[in-house]
């Protein structure tokens, strides 16, 4: 027991690092790309239908053939890790665009109107008011994207990507159950670390949403008594079910 692991620590470490590298870009990219898409989806019904339906459509494409076909579609070299990164970003955006649309829609209209009234430009209002208030729902969405991206990276082994998925195929071919188990456990560990990092980032970036403080300030604008300056909008309290969009991932 553990003989294989002890003899192959370097391999496991190298594959884990690659796995993380391959996952990190799609996760960040789908977060960044989904925000303008979410904004678009809330402009009108037609755009919403386009974004949401487009997302579902992309999501149904099975990963295996997409990995194989992508080099032809985007003109990359067959072994370029960009193929995997682009494919994973497509899936990430498919899920995240919907989350972003829901997140931005969850922002209280009266808060938005009030921030317009106190002189925010539309862009300033979006960045300084709507986006922070949409934070908790965005966070729930990106957690789902992170977990599923990390699980999906391993399918890339079929197109020659070097990641933890190698331990699955090599372990099965050589009949080493321990190798497959180590691959699964490392993949779970990477997912757990990503999730913890995202949650911590969320706490730091959205201190108002921290458990125990969430309920203190109610929806509406709370003037900053210390400076007397521009009022800082406090986000409405979001109950758990809302934050998770029913997914219970919160």
């Amino acid at each position: 027991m553990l003989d294989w692991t002890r003899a192959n620590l370097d391999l496991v470490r190298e594959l884990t690092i690659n796995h993380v590298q391959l996952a990190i870009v799609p996760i960040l990219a789908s977060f960044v790309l989904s925000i303008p898409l979410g904004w678009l989806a809330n402009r009108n019904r037609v755009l919403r239908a386009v974004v949401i339906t487009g997302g579902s459509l992309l999501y149904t494409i099975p990963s295996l053939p997409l990995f194989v076909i992508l080099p032809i579609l985007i003109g990359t070299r067959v072994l370029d890790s960009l193929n995997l990164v682009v494919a994973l970003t497509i899936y990430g955006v498919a899920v995240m665009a919907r989350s972003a649309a829901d997140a931005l829609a969850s922002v209280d209209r009266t808060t938005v109107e009030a921030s317009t009234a106190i002189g925010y430009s539309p862009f300033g209002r979006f960045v300084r008011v709507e986006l922070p208030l949409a934070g908790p729902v965005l966070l729930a969405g990106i957690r789902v994207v992170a977990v599923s991206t990390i699980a999906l990276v391993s399918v890339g082994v079929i197109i020659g990507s070097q990641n933890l998925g190698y331990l699955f195929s090599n372990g099965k071919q050589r009949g080493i159950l321990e190798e497959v188990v180590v691959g699964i456990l490392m993949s779970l560990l990477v997912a757990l670390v990503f999730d913890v990092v995202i949650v911590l980032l969320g706490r730091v970036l959205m201190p108002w949403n921290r458990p125990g403080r969430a309920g203190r300030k109610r929806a509406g604008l709370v003037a900053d008594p210390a400076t007397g300056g521009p009022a800082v909008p406090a986000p409405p309290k979001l109950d758990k079910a809302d934050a998770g969009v029913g997914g219970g991932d919160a």
Partner: protein
Amino acid sequence: MTHHPRWRRIGVVAVVAGLSTALAACGSSDPTGPSEGAASGDTIVVGSFNYPESEILGEIYSQALEAKDFDVEERFNIGPRQQTIPALQDGSINLIPEYNGNLLTYYDESNTLIETGEIDEALVDAVAADDLRVLDSAPAEDKDAYVVTREKAEAEGLTTIADLEKITPFKLGANPQFNEYSYGVPGLNETYGITDVEFVPIEDFGGPDTVKALVDDTVQVADIYTTSPALVAEDLVVLEDPEGIIAAQNVIPLVSDAAYSDELADALNAVSAELTTEDLIGLRDRVEGDEKASAETAAADWLQEKGLA
């Protein structure tokens, strides 16, 4: 106090940005990325297919080249030929262990040549069209084989593929390609006149699943390659091929024109000259059998033993 969280926020963003940069920097040693030096010919990037034998052969090539002071990078575990050939052409890899018969069939599906010499000769022109070249083939051969259990062979009197007529209808397990190419089901139908066959696709290159299907009698005949350690371990019988539908499958280095040099050819030809089928069976047994040696170790020991490294 009110501004404190903002500073912390900026700090966190900086840390994340720093981490991303650091990870991106690690990316320069990322074996999944194309190698910078590949095109210039300084570094030889050795590829392999995604099964253990190919990885062992890739290790043998790369260690033999290292012993001759080549700069070598490994880019193993690549999918089938529609990945490896483009990868050779675009410089993502420069060299890969191939099998002469299947390589020729990839270029010419109607290929009927089966002898090592004639295949090697035909290959020279076939691969030249893609700016590739083949070096000397090794005596070592890993070819497709129609395999049955010893029990079945003795009970039914099976020694050649033609004898399979006696057990029709039967199920035949192999990779999906086997159903399309002349050494597989089409050859069985047309050359041997055996038509009552149900093809069972098994996606593992004659690996453990294919062996299990045969031993469990889910399939009665399987395509298991001649270097499989399971042939001995499970006491399996390879049927003879009197009509010659199965082409030779000698191990042969396939290298891109851009990376070719006489020194490279000399180093690899020296390997090919020593490599026999028995060696290959022994190497696979170390890696896939009970020992579970790594491909790297098995390859290093073999090179040492032959005085090549």
